[in-house]
Each structure stands twice: as C-alpha cells, then as structure tokens.
C-alpha cells in the first residue's frame, strides 16, 4: 500500500506487555503464567483500548484493583449450546438421541421433547448428532456465545440395506445413570416382531424383555419385577392411563401408528416420577409431520388402523389424527360357537395431537386419547369401558440452561354395564378421573451438574359405583356409593452429577395424599374393619373436610461407575409410595374392577428397591450385555378375604387384608444392535411372594425362570424374517388335596395356596416381512411405501397350559379329574398389510 501509513503491526504478547508496563507502572502480570503468542496491534489505540482489544481477542483477562491493572491468562468462558433435534422428513422430535462432541468424551442425550443442552468452554467444536436408525450428522459450531440450534437427521432406513446404529447412541446403556430402562421404538426390527394375529404392539414387545410379564395369554395387566398390575405408572404424553389393555390383554391401547417412543423404567425412578411403586411406562405419541401431509395405516385380521398427519403451518405447527377399529366381533370364551349368547368383544380408539411452536423458546402441545371396549354378554348385557385423556403442555426455554414443562391434563377411566334383561334391567357405572397440573424443570448448570425440580398436583375423583334402573319402572333400585375425593401432591428435587468415572443421580420426592370429604366413615370395634356387624358408629365429613392425611419421603439414588467406554456398574436404591389401588380378587384384573384411594383403613403401599447391575458392550457397541439383580420389599400389599365381595360394597374395607411382600431376581440381557441379524436374548430368574400369617406365599404371576429371545434377519432390502421364542416356568397354581360332594356337586378342597405350578410354557412365533419396492423403475425413490407381514403364532401348536380346572370326571362323576385348559391350542397364521403415503 504505497503512500499509506501502516497502523497495524504484529508483535509478541510478552514483548508488548513489557513495553506497555514501561509507560504504565500500575500494570501487573506474570509472564510465566501468560502464554506468549503473536498479536495484531493497532498503533492508534490508546493504552486502555489496546488492553481491551487484547482481552476481546482472548489473549488476556483484565481485572482492576484500585490503581493496579492485573493481567492474567485468558480465562475461557462457558457457553451453552442448546436446541432441538428432529427427523428431517417428518419434523418428529427425536427422543434419547446422542449429542456428542467429537474427539471428547462429553455429550448428552435429548430429552422427551427432543431438547438438549451442552455447556462448554468457548471454542470451536464439531458436534455429532446420532440416533438409532438415522444417519449421523456433524455440525461445526463456533461456541462464543449461547447458541440455539435446530438439527435434523435423515432416516437411514430408506437408503441402506441395514439399519445403521451409531456408536454413541448404542453406548447410552453404558453412559446412562438410570438403570433398568428399556426403550422401545416401533420402527425397523421392532416393527417386524410377530405377535398374535400379526398385530404390532408395544406392550407385547415389552413382555419379551427381562422382568416384564403377564400372567398368561388372556390376562390383562403388566407385572414388573413382581409388582402388581396397578403399580405401574402408565403415561401417555405424561397423562395417566389406568387400563393399558384392549381385548382382555391381547393388545394394548397404544395404537402403533401414533406411538413415537416407549420408555420402561423397571426399577429406579427419577424423583420426578411417583404415585406408583413398581415401574414407569412412558409412551409418547408422535408429533405429527410438520413438513408435509402423510397418511399411513394397516389392516389385519384383528384391526384396521389409520393415521393422517401434516403441517398446520409448515415448520411451526402440525397435527396428527389416528384411529383404530377392531374388525371382527370376536368371541372371548367360545370362538367356535355360533350361539347368539356367546361373549363378544370389539374395541376402537382415537388419538389426536396438535403442536405449535411459535418460537425457539416455546412449544405448545395438545393431545388426546379416546378408547373404548364393548363386550356383549349373552343376549342383552353390554359392557363398555375405556380410557380418555386430554393433555395440554407448554415447553418453555427460560434460558439455555433452564428447560421447563408445564402440563395440565385430565385422565379418566370408566366402565358402564347395561343390562336390559331381568331381573331388574339396570345400568351400572363407575369412573375414576384425575385433574392434574405438573411443573417439571430441568436446570443444566454445567456439563457435570444437572438439576431437576418441580411439583405435581393430582385431584382424584372416584365414583366407585352407581347402579340405577335402565327404565324408570325397572325393578332395580338406585344404589350410589359415596364418591371419593383426594388431592395427591408431590414436590421433588433431583441432581445428576458426574465426578470422574462416577455419575450420580439422586433426589428426594415428598408425596402427600389428602383424602377429603364429603364421606361417611364407618367406625369398627377395636378399629378393626372385620365385618359389617362390627360397625359401631359413623363419622360424617363435609365437602372438602380432611378425612385422612398420608405423606411419604421418597429418597432415590443411582450411581453409575463407568469402567471405560464399554462397561459400567450401576447401583440404585429407590423408595416409592402409592396412594391409589386397583381392587381385584380375580386371577387377572377385569375391566370392571374399581380403583380405591387410600383412606382411613386402607394405607398407602410402599416399595423399597435396591439393584446392582453390570453393563458391557462389545464389538463397538454392536452387542449390549447386562446382568442386573434386584431386591424389593413391598408393604401393605392389598389382599382379599375368601369370597370377598367387591361389587357395590359400601364397606369394602371389611373385605381387605394387608400383606408385606418381597420380590427378588436376576435379569440377564444380550442384544445385537447392528447388522443384517439383530435381536436379543433375555432371561430372568426371580421370585415374588407375600407373607401372610408368617407364611411366604408365591404371587400368582411368579415365574422362576423366564426366557425370551427375538431375532430379525434382513435378507435383502425388501425381505426379512423374524422369530420369537419364549419359555418360562409355569405360574403358581393351587392344587386340591381332596374332593367331597355337596348336593351332588364335586367340590375340590384346597389347603395351601399356590402350592404347585403349571407346566413349563414355551412357544415359537415366526413372521416374514415383505416390503414394497423402494424405488421406481427410473431409479428415483418412491414416496409411497408399503409392506406385508405374514405371521404364525405358536408355530409348533404347543398347547400351553393357561390354567387347571378341577371337576367331576365325565366318565365317572364320582371321581375328580384335572383338566388342563389352553387358550391357544394350535398355530395361528395371520397377515397384515401396512402402508404409508
């Protein structure tokens, strides 16, 4: 630049500081601590401006102490990278995806809304986003301020012959501090697993994992690690679902078309969860495609289902609507009968979800569910039952470090029985509803410390039973049991910290139940509700008056000791309390069982659980192995007197007993997550028992050995085959010792309860999936996709015992005989067709 004066020059930092100090005696520094480097200086700048320029360029830090100016090495600041991770094609949030810094060991996982935050020293980073079944991406981020980013991933399913599983995503089982978690996504392999009549189902899938089981094939309810069916906190978009089954347990209420992600926590529950003592089953619905309108669905022998989703405002707002209808009016007790009087059942459900994201800081969700089962019994008796849920949520990012969710929801479960035959045509109904508000905050202090805190308030309203005439002149009287009201509330605080190779998640939950009037509380002799005849008085409580108060402190702690990148040891302890109970004295719960709040006579149940597990990944996380032991102590498990009458009973406490119980076990799990062959093997050795009158009695769902394995082989891009094999110890059964006759009827006489077991159960299922062509003749990718599933359930037609009957022999009615009853006595083929366009 000839003729111009050069105002900038390059100098060494140490030399520059020395020259500045020569003219400014107040300057203090130690060259030993400051890294020497070349700096660009502008000769025109004043002394103060020059120092500030050096600080701005991150060469030094400046502090002032009276007249002195202290120069220190530059201290990098921490900034937070936060944002959302979504599916590029559909806009769906990706839950539990890995966000890691390449070349470093730190990273995080997206939460239930696809949100993540990472706090790092300022600098230039390459951030890698990865998720099962998606192509990983890397983004270069210059982190010199807090940054919000919207990252999207492309599914790899369409373009590759095998499902790509990212290394870090697969490593989540090692890194996560919460033990005993199963994540289920109904894509890829999970969508090929054969179930009864070809239906894809999240709950049936869960039964293939260790520690999760049903009593039998025609039995509602989920038992997790020896817990009862009412001890699972089942959440659909964070709202409670009371009965997760359609069709007496053969299929769940969760329409696979609408489900995004399922997470099952079998043991340790973070303190943000409570109200149940056994497990959390968290189901999240899809968001709805915010890019384009899509339709998907399927049809099989059991049901037809469809889903439509699309943008309301592209990129900002989307909707989802799905529906499912059973196709055949199936008989549950006599499939082959043509009688008009057999029992028949059908079901349907509807899911709706709308979300709106007006800014990066706010997202609003409105979701709903409506399900119904209809069971016709005999000529004129109809039973309807179902769940309903409406849920509003607001995600708000207060700061890059503070993510908050406010949820308000209504959950209901009700049943209605309508009988228009005599004696006394009637309608009976029962309902449980809760109206809830929850606040959950996630504060990300830094890369080593995360806090959660919040509260929840659930207002319970229970209508145990109303029975009234179908028509005004019908014979039956109106009987209305007292409604129950209660406020279940909780405060919680949790902290997850990382210290060296240890991660610790701990917290405390304080839960309360205020059982409120109006109600009448019977008083019994010796305060012991043994029989109606023991009633001595009645206390009357007015509306809103406190009837009974319970509270519990629920400490939780889980420690993860990482033994390198591929293995870890996890130990946990948790205490949980439950204030609401399902009263059912049948082998498996019925849809017309009623819920009951803890009250003057019914205490809350509590569970203390410890677990210890070893997790190991092999071959670059292709194989995931785990071994985990647990021990649970349960208090005040509800039991029932012989012949307990739970239907429209005003003094139901007289029919109940309480037992302490325990369950313990060892769960082994090995899964192959990558390659043409994928699947898992699961084995549980366990015992679950109650202590009654000093005797340990096995619970009805106890299975000593429980083995299951599920594998999928992708032959080519269009064809895959899958197989399940299940084997377990038969459930406990009470065998008779004697027989006698009463009025000519043979009566089995029993002694000890659950004194034997049914024979070993085992079954093989196979399926073949044939996908439609992925590409047009021109080579371009087809937008419309479809596939067929051909399934055979119980391939070798094993007649597994569901139960034993004890009856008089048909040949000689004077003699007893034992009859093995099998629900499925043959192989059951099925076909389903699924499409998306």
């Amino acid at each position: 630049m000839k003729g111009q004066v050069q105002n900038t020059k390059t100098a060494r930092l140490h030399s520059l500081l020395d020259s500045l100090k020569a003219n400014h005696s107040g300057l203090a520094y130690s060259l030993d601590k400051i890294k020497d480097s070349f700096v660009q200086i502008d000769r025109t700048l004043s002394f103060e401006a020059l120092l500030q320029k050096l600080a701005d360029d991150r060469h030094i830090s400046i502090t002032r102490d009276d007249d002195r100016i202290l120069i220190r090495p530059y201290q990098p600041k921490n900034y937070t990278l936060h944002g959302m991770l979504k599916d590029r094609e559909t806009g769906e949030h990706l839950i539990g995806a890995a966000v890691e810094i390449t070349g470093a060991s730190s990273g995080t996982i997206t939460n239930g809304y696809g949100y993540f935050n990472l706090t790092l020293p300022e600098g230039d980073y390459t951030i890698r986003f990865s998720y099962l079944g998606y192509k990983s991406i890397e983004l270069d981020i210059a982190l010199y301020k807090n940054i919000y980013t919207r990252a999207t991933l492309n599914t790899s399913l369409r373009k590759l012959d095998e499902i790509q599983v990212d290394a870090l995503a697969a490593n989540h089982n090692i890194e996560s501090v919460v033990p005993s978690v199963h994540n289920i996504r109904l894509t890829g392999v999970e969508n090929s697993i054969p179930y009864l009549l070809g239906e894809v189902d999240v709950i049936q899938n869960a039964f293939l994992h260790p520690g999760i089981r049903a009593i039998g094939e025609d039995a509602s309810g989920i038992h997790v690690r020896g817990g009862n069916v009412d001890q699972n906190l089942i959440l659909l978009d964070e709202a409670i679902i009371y009965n997760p089954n359609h069709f007496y347990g053969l299929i769940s209420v969760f329409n696979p078309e609408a489900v995004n992600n399922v997470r099952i926590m079998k043991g340790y529950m973070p303190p943000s969860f409570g109200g149940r003592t056994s497990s959390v089953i968290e189901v999240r619905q899809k968001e709805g495609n915010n890019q384009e309108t899509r339709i998907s669905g399927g049809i099989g022998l059991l049901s037809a289902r469809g889903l439509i989703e699309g943008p309301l405002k592209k990129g900002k707002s989307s909707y989802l609507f799905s529906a499912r209808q059973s196709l055949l009016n199936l008989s549950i007790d006599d499939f082959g009968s043509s009688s008009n009087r057999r029992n028949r059942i059908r079901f349907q459900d509807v899911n709706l979800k709308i979300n709106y994201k007006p800014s990066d800081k706010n997202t609003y969700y409105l979701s709903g569910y409506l399900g119904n089962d209809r069971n016709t019994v005999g000529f004129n008796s109809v039973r309807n039952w179902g769940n309903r849920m409406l849920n509003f949520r607001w995600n708000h990012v207060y700061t890059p470090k503070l993510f908050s969710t406010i949820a308000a929801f209504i959950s209901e479960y009700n049943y209605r029985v309508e009988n228009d035959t005599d004696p006394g045509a009637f309608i009976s109904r029962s309902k449980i509803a809760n109206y809830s508000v929850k606040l959950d905050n996630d504060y990300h202090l830094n890369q080593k410390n995360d806090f959660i805190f919040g509260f929840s308030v659930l207002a319970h309203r229970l209508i145990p039973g109303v029975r009234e005439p179908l028509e005004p002149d019908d014979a039956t009287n109106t009987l209305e049991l007292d409604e129950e009201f209660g406020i279940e509330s909780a405060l919680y605080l949790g902290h997850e910290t990382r210290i060296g190779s240890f991660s610790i998640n701990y917290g405390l939950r304080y839960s309360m139940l205020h059982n409120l009037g109006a109600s009448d509380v019977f008083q019994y002799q010796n305060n012991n509700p043994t029989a109606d005849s023991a009633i001595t008085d009645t206390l009357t409580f007015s509306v809103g008056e406190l009837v009974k108060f319970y509270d519990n402190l629920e400490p939780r702690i889980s420690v993860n000791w990482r033994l390198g990148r591929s293995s870890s040891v996890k130990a946990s302890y948790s205490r949980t309390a439950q204030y609401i109970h399902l009263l059912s004295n049948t082998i498996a719960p019925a849809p017309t069982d009623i819920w009951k709040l803890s009250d003057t006579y019914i205490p809350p149940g509590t569970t203390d659980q410890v677990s210890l597990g070893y997790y190991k990944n092999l071959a670059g996380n292709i194989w995931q192995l785990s071994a985990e032991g647990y021990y649970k102590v349960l208090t005040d498990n509800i039991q029932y007197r012989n012949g307990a009458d739970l239907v429209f009973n005003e003094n139901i406490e007289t029919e109940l007993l309480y037992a302490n119980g325990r369950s313990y076990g060892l769960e082994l799990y090995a899964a192959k997550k990558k390659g043409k062959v994928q699947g898992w093997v699961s084995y549980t050795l366990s015992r679950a028992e109650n202590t009654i009158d000093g005797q340990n009695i096995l619970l009805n769902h106890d299975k000593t050995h429980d083995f299951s394995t599920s594998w999928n082989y992708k032959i080519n891009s269009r064809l895959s085959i899958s197989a399940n094999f299940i084997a377990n110890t038969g459930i406990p059964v009470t065998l008779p010792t004697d027989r006698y006759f009463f009025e000519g009827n043979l009566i089995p006489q029993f002694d000890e309860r659950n004194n034997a077991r049914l024979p070993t159960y085992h079954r093989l299922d196979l399926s073949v999936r044939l996908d439609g062509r992925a590409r047009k003749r021109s080579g371009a990718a087809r937008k419309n996709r479809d596939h067929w599933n051909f399934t055979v359930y119980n391939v070798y037609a094993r007649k597994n015992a569901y139960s034993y009957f004890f009856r008089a022999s048909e040949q000689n009615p004077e003699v007893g005989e034992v009859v093995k009853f099998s629900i499925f006595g043959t192989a059951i083929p099925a076909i389903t067709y699924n499409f998306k366009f």
Partner: protein
Amino acid sequence: MKKASKHLFLFVILLIGCEEVVVIDLPPTQNLIVIEGFLTNQLEHQEISLSTSTAFLSTSPTSFIENAIAFVRSSENERFDFEYVSNGLYRSQVPFKGKVGVEYQLSLFLDGGLRINSDWDRMPFPTIPDTVLIETFVDSDPENNDLETDFFFPSIRVRDSINYPNFYRWKFLKNNVPLVEPSPITLQSDRFFDGNFIPNEFDEFSYREGDTAIVQLQSITEATFLYLRLLASQITTLGTSSGTTPAQVIGNFSSSDESVVLGYFGTAAIASDTLIMRRQ
C-alpha cells in the same frame, strides 16, 4: 366377500382353546369330615349326610360316617334326633318342619368323643313367587348348528319384602333331574331390589318343548348365602382369568378338637312350582 372373510377368520381361530384331562401329582389328602344338611319349612323327614373327603383323584368311593349321634336343637328347646339310613344319610326320626324365626343347630357326636356343632341358623320367612310364566327364545340347535330351534325358560316374578335383607336360592329341575348348567347354585340377594317386584328371566336354564320343570325358590339366611356364594365360585369360575383364587370353603361347623370340618347346616324356607314347557 363377507362370507369369505368369515371363513378366513374361522380358519384362523376355530381350533383355538382346548381342554385336556391330565394326571398330575397332588398334595396329600386331608380326609376331612363333611356335613351337609338343610332344614326346610316343609313337614317331612329332614335329612343330613356325613362323609369324609378323599384324595381328589382317588377312584375309591366316598367314605361315609355311619355311627354318629346326630340331632337338631331349636332355640325353643326342641330336640330332633336323627338316625342312620345308608350311604352317609341320616334322617330325622319323626317328620318335622322348621318354624319361621326359630333358630336351629345341628350337633354330632362321633367316635373318639369328637363333638361337632353347627352355628345357629334362623329359619327365614318364605317368599312365594308372584307369577310364574314360560317364555321362549330361538337359538342355534346345539346338535346341529345350522338349524335353529325354540328354547323355553321360566320367567318368575317375586315380590321382595321391604326394608329387610332377603337372600334367595333358586333350584331348577328338568324332568326331575337337577339342572347344574350353567351353575348348580343360583343365588340372589335383594340388595338391588329391596321391596320391589323382582322379574327373573332364567334364560340360562333352557328347556325344550314338553319338558317338566320344577322351580324351587328357597329363602335363606345371609350366612347361608355367603357360604353358597363362595362354594359356587369354587365350582364355576376356577381356572379362568376372571376366576377367583382357589380357597378353602369353610362352613359353619366347629369341632371339639378344632379340626377343620367341611360343609354346612342351614335353614331354607321353600316355595316350589311345577311347569310343563309349552307355548303359552
């Protein structure tokens, strides 16, 4: 198309669900004393039976107790002695009937000095059916599913007495043979019908044209009702997912050595009617 889909579905599920008689090891027998008897309001020789339970799968005949001393006492200090007849059956030495509002107890003395007493049970007031009708429905013929046929059933209206808990048991005989399907024990309480006409349509107990039906309405006490309800649940719902857990059905006997005694002694006020099943 509808027919085709029906056949497809039947192909899938016709063979679902099956029963198979099996032989398994059972726990050792208890050989308990079993007592059965209902004192009625009918003037007749009242009967009780005594036996012992045997191993469930045993092919041995039932063992009867033959040498017991048996008598019924009333709260009016009456005593009615019973004498052994055969096959465990004891019959009152004289005909007598239970009186409404009077309590009765069965006492037994067995070998070895064992004494057994039942609880006291009060004879209820008998309830007489108001109207008894025969009704019909059409359903598939169980012998040929492709055909339909007429079934007959009793329709009986009962006037329940108000402000008093009543418990009923129904018995049905078809051509003098007790109907045990769908249940040998049919019970009813007036919890939902107190003081009303109860219109019963027993379409589960189906008859064919020309059958003779004997319909018996027994008024029983609450204790008897609870015992029979538990007994019925052990006969009819065991083994199903909605079935009750198997349990000992303990009756209303106590013994001097505190051993378990099975069975029941109670009172029943009976009203009976006989019908010939024809279109009315």
